[in-house]
């Protein structure tokens, strides 16, 4: 077995994969959040951002494919880890309790992962695999004006927030980046990034619920 397959097949190797793909997905989220915040500046700004994005042409498609690949690897590895972990404890405890280590985020990682997956499917069907004869601004305004979708989006985005709240710090830990000098900074960054991404997306959703005219 080559060193590479041996590494990625090991439990730690899988964690590296989770961290690295998580890092890239986090990077995508930041860019996505930054782009989407053009909505705050109205229809013109948003359409201009969308126009520039689509102007990338081939590059955009390549990026999409790459993102899809990263995403699939993250999900696949996560699923393997989840099943492996279930199997590592053949008999369950009669009484479950936490000694204080777990957080909501860490305890729900696989489940928030599934929520995010479903949410992304809905999100893609809403905005990607849809009739593109109208502008993206019209589509977004229409979908997010409906309270049903507001609810779905808030649930999905909360799941995302919870997932990232553990995932970001966990990524550093899994890659072995831990030092008394920098621990607090890493913690702070984790909360900041998680809070920022979630806040931006949720604000957009709420904004469009109360005022869909911003994109008209």
């Amino acid at each position, binding site marked *: 077995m080559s060193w590479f397959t041996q590494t990625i097949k090991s439990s730690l190797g899988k964690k590296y994969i989770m961290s690295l793909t998580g890092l890239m997905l986090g990077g995508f989220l930041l860019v996505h959040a930054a782009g989407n915040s053009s909505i705050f500046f109205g229809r013109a700004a948003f359409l201009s951002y969308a126009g520039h994005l689509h102007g990338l042409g081939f590059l955009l498609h390549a990026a999409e494919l790459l993102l899809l690949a990263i995403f699939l690897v993250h999900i696949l590895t996560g699923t393997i880890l989840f099943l492996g972990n279930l199997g*590592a*404890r053949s008999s369950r405890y009669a009484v*479950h309790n936490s*000694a204080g*280590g777990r957080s909501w985020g860490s305890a729900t990682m696989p489940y928030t992962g599934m929520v995010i997956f479903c949410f992304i499917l809905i999100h893609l069907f809403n905005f990607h695999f849809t009739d593109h004869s109208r502008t993206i601004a019209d589509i977004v305004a229409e979908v997010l004006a409906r309270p049903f979708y507001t609810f779905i989006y808030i649930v999905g985005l909360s799941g995302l927030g919870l997932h990232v709240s553990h995932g970001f710090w966990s990524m550093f*830990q899994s890659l*072995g980046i*831990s030092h008394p000098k920098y621990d607090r900074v890493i913690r702070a960054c984790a909360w900041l990034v998680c809070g920022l991404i979630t806040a931006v997306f949720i604000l957009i959703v709420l904004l469009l619920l109360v005022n869909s005219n911003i994109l008209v």
Partner: protein
Amino acid sequence: MAAKIISLNLKVWRQNGPDKKGALENYRLENISIDMSFLEMIDVLNEKLTVEGKEPVAFDHDCREGICGMCGAVVDGIAHGPEKETTLCQLHMRHFQDGQTLTIEPFRAKAFPVIKDLVVDRSSLDIIIQAGGFISVNTGSAPDANGIPVPQHKAEQAMDAAACIGCGACVAACPNAAAMLFVSAKISQLALLPQGAPEREKRALSMVQAMDKEGFGNCTNERECEAVCPKGISIRNIARLNREFLRASLLSDEQG
């Protein structure tokens, strides 16, 4: 001040053998002195069962001063019970209330099959050490002890990690039954000391491989291990293990 004597309702896991089906059984204990240790409380239960003509509860224990790592059970869902940095033998009954119901279960993990009642087989931890938890120096071939200076803080950090008693509570408490805290403690101790340097990469590769082979789960950084560890071993050691393994995988010439 609380009463010096308390009564307890116990639900204790009884299982007659590795392949037998187990179940919780109820017992009532009166007149438990709050100065007793948890294991002395089980002693009292066992004396009572013996006199009543029943089978006493099998449980592992030896030094009863918190250092041998032999004892351990899950009390109300927490390995070694509710007190921080305390083994079961050093947990005293003054931490419980009169009339409280306690559920006592064995450490559960696929890699720790139950032998009987609260006794589990933790030999998988020894197998991991066999894979590389040592420094290869034959008796007699050591240089003078002061030959290689070790910075005090490094020695202290190594000692922090070396304090692991191998009780397996980290595995029992981990939602994924992972043995990362145990493995990382040994890897850290030897990686922090200059004496461990020659085998540093090989050690990280082999010990992780052995850990995976023994059927432990994967770490998801839940920190439950650190929370129950009777010796306060930090998950900083797990980060170091992650680093050591990554470094060894990417840079070493060794095959694991």
